[in-house]
């Protein structure tokens, strides 16, 4: 039994990293822009479909462009729709991004049909490795390494570059940053685009594992919201810790009480919010009080 618990724990952590990748963009967009992006799952689905379309036409390597294209779509969406929501009633953002999510699903259905489309990992990532009772597929290891790399790079970008400082300052006090002569709208467009790019990357990496259908956003958006809520809205570190906690909890519930596996992350969220209503790393932000 100990072997099985160890095996499930490792698997849960690997699954958690995929969840982190999906959730981190949502967390960034809320933390920096104050927008609760219900369409985040839609960008995840768009990333998966772009990977499918590019991979089908030009081969697997072309699919790597899917996150960049998703980020580019994010630029257009931010400039046309999202930027009108800054500083407005939060409910407007919820309604608009919810409508955007429905629209994106309908457009994907129109273009690709409702039936699932196939997409496989490249051959060199097929297979798995075993260390005693632990089994990890090469593809999931690739997802883990990619996620860690992306998180480290993004953290370094925020912490050590002038652009990162502007973003962090803008997220706390946009008026002051604007008064310093910084073109904040362009910064916000960039932030939204990065959030969408990360969602697209999540879609690309999940495509060989999940079913690619227009409704696949639903499977991504709920864990993402749970992770962001557990971690604390807008918290980078919080999303990472919460993602790993959710992965671990889900895997352990499957081992011992499988029929509860769908509800496990919600119970975890409820328990944490009872103790820490702002989430594990949530802070009091004047902007949102």
């Amino acid at each position, binding site marked *: 039994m100990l072997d*099985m618990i160890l*095996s*499930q724990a490792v*698997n*849960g952590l*690997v*699954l958690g990293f*995929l969840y982190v990748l999906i959730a981190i963009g949502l967390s960034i967009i809320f933390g920096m822009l104050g927008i609760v992006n219900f369409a985040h799952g839609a960008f995840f689905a768009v990333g998966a479909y772009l990977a499918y379309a590019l991979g089908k036409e030009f081969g697997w390597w072309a699919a790597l462009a899917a996150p960049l294209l998703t980020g580019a779509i994010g630029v257009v969406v931010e400039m046309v729709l999202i930027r009108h929501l800054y500083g407005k009633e939060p409910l407007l953002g919820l309604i608009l991004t919810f409508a955007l999510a429905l629209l994106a*699903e309908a457009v994907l*259905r129109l273009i690709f*049909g*409702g*039936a*699932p*489309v*196939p*997409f*496989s*990992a490249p051959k060199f990532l097929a*297979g*798995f490795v075993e260390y005693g009772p632990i*089994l990890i*597929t090469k*593809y*999931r290891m690739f997802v883990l390494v990619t996620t860690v790399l992306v998180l480290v790079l993004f953290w370094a970008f925020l912490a050590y570059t002038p652009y990162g400082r502007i973003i962090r300052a803008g997220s706390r006090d946009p008026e002051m940053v604007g008064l310093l002569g910084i073109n904040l709208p362009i910064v916000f467009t960039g932030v939204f685009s990065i959030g969408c790019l990360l969602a697209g990357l999540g879609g690309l990496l999940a495509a*060989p*594992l*999940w*079913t*690619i*259908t*227009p*409704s*696949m956003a*639903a*499977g*991504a958006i709920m*864990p993402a919201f749970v992770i962001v809520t557990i971690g604390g809205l807008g918290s980078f570190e919080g999303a990472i810790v919460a993602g790993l906690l959710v992965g671990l909890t*889900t*895997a352990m519930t*499957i*081992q011992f009480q*499988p*029929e509860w*596996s*769908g*509800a496990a992350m919600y119970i975890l969220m409820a328990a944490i919010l009872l103790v820490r209503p702002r989430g594990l790393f949530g802070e009091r932000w004047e902007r949102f009080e």
Partner: protein
Amino acid sequence: MTEPTKTCAATTLHIGRRGLLLGATSLAASRLGMPYVGNAAAAEPIKIGMIWAKTGSIVDQAEYLAQGGMLALEQRNNTLLGRPAEIVWLDEPNPQGAQQSAERLVGEQKVVGMVGGALSSFALAISSVAKKAKIPYVAANAATGDLTGKSCNKYTFRLQPPVDVHARILAPYCASIGKKWYLLTASYAFGQDIKRAFTDYITANGGTVVGADEVPVGTPDYSSFILKIRAAKPDVVIGGIAASDLTTFLKQWNELGMKGKIPFAEISVGNTDLWGVGPEAADGLYTITWWYKNPNNSPEEQAMAAAYEKRHNRPAADKAWMGWLGMKSLLDSIEMAKSTEPGAIVQALEAWKYRRGDMDVGYRDFDHQMTSRLLVAGIHPKISDKWDYFDVRAELPKTPDEIAKAFGSSADSACKMDTL
């Protein structure tokens, strides 16, 4: 919130001023010297309700089910009893949503019959509305035994063979592979029926269930379940997960290196479930209700398959056929009844027969279950056609007596049929 409805008979016409004048003049001329025989009822289109998912985990199959239903009416030039007819299609996001859609179709749209219920839980919800409102309802996809068992009613008819029938056909194949089974089933009526039916079979035949997990609908990651299966070392894994959940499972089953190591079997799968898996990961032994390449398909089915492919530029999936036949049985019955009166349509549905291969299929009087053959299919070892995954091994049961035995008699049935 008002949901948009879709009518397949409705078309948008752009008529210019001259066209309008010409049309009006022609219409007036045609009326000259003729008595007016129409009335308000004749001008009204006959409405048929269709409830297939537009959102949720079963939406992939529902698209084909809906297209099949639309095709059945189009093949009649969108007319019934000499009057225009149209389909009103509403969503079924969950069982409550399915029930509300059925109530809206009956109360607001005044439909004369309904087809739908992509998942068993949805079909049971619609069936309860059909019973209460006394409106004929054909459940074309749901497989739970309750629908034509303990929850049967005079107004509900079911096309898909119930889980027990699928299980009676597939279980002997699985037992021939090995007697240690692991069950991975969805945590709702369909999955629970599969769990019960296969557990009963293997325990009655000297085998054991080495593990059984119920999986929530919409589970995005099966790796932890697969690790449990791997540790249990069963001879066969019996699946009971539907639509895109099955697709996801098979992709991850392959990813974790299980394809070809432990055989996987499941009843009542759809073409679309496998098309989404891809040739590299597709695996398993299945029962299916219909296959577009089956040489035993009737001429009418072949015509339907050709019309579908011409319209949608892809082969007709089994779900398209189910949507088509479910709708066709209802439309045929309205014509047979020469009426839109619910009681007359129900009696016509009970008498309705359809030729498939060497036998007539129809709905049985005592439980309103359609009896027909099933196909047992594996997956081609090498898939060269992106639509052609199934390697059909048998069409069972073979004789009418065996079919009657597989579906069970009225004495075996839990259905206590009510009256009109």
